[in-house]
């Protein structure tokens, strides 16, 4: 994944010593990690969570967890992959906590009134924002972050076929909202 490469090259060569310093509790090292990954972590959280505030909380929780669990990072994969996994779990946990908002019925009801105002063709950001939370999380984790259905299922505590059906629902909705025109 190109994004992951870009992010890891940020810490290139230095990652090992930074991790070692975080392990012994060096706050300056934790800050280096924070600065390197705050944007991609926030972006992931913001794309998955409904509000900026939720995404900010996920950002904070992710780095606290990184500090607390850095001992579990074995160095066998890229550091960003490990941090991203922590961030994804935290974002999904946040969704579960807000679950009462996330049923299609509720969602559709809330939007039914405004449906006439919906422009014939939405832009991608708006369409993504409009997806039900679970579908949006799955489409983001699968299509952008590159997780498999098996990995998503594990993180969500669901089955891979649940993840698959959420993905196709997301795409069916995006397809309808983005319109017939060829996307440039």
């Amino acid at each position, binding site marked *: 994944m190109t*994004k992951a490469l870009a992010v890891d090259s940020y810490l290139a060569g230095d990652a090992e010593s930074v991790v070692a310093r975080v392990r*012994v*509790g060096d*706050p300056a090292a*934790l*800050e280096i990690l*924070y*600065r390197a990954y*705050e*944007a*991609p972590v*926030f*972006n992931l959280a*913001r*794309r998955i969570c409904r509000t*900026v505030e939720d*995404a*900010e909380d996920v*950002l*904070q929780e992710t*780095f*606290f967890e990184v*500090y*607390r669990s850095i001992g579990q990072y074995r160095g066998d994969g890229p550091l960003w992959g490990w941090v991203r996994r922590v961030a994804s779990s935290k974002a999904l946990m946040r969704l579960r906590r807000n679950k009462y908002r996330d049923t299609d019925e509720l969602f559709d009801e809330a939007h039914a009134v405004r449906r006439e105002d919906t422009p014939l063709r939405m832009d*991608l*950001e708006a369409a*993504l924002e409009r997806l039900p939370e679970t579908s949006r999380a799955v*489409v*983001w984790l699968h*299509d*952008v972050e590159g997780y498999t259905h098996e990995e998503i299922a594990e993180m969500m505590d669901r089955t891979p076929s649940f993840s*698959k*059906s959420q*993905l*196709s*629902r997301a*795409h*069916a909705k*995006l*397809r309808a909202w*983005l319109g017939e025109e*060829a*996307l440039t």
Partner: protein
Amino acid sequence: MMHLTMEQLLAVRHAGSEPGSAESQAHVQVCPECAAELDRLHQRVARLRALPTLRPPRDRFAAVAARVRHDRRQLYFRRTGIGALALAASLLLAVVGRDLMAPPAANASDQLTTVMAESATLEQALRQIRSSQQVTDAYTTRAAASLEDRIAELDHELESAQMQTSPATRSELLPLWRERVGLMDALVDVHLTRAHNVGL
């Protein structure tokens, strides 16, 4: 001819690993409509990946660092068996988090009582920490000494201010007490950072 469902189109992307995807792939080859739909799908994904990276509106590192410090204290208190200070740990969060969270609405005299209690708890914590640390390195000694000097100065200020103030206006001392708690807090940190680094 039946066109492909979204699920089947998605499966074509991972042809080989998905059951039934070979047939779908064969269909795409002969059906221009489904081929176009698959193309749209690929483009949609490409555009999702190309969305700009959203950046956090505020710097949250201070909040992360505060939580780390709080966590370290609790861990230290637990390991060294300073059980009586479980309360201190929760008070400490109030101190540490003060700048980060909106302070609870309380009248000045209540606030003064709270801050004085925090100060006393920190004092007790420091005594315990000092007595459990046999050796102190030069860095800790230096950092602690300058904080202790300032605390001594502050205590002097507090003493003379207290003599000039009537009990009714004691809440005017709140800023001084707050500063004292802040300094004590930093002092606890100096000792605990060292304790953490030597693996206590």
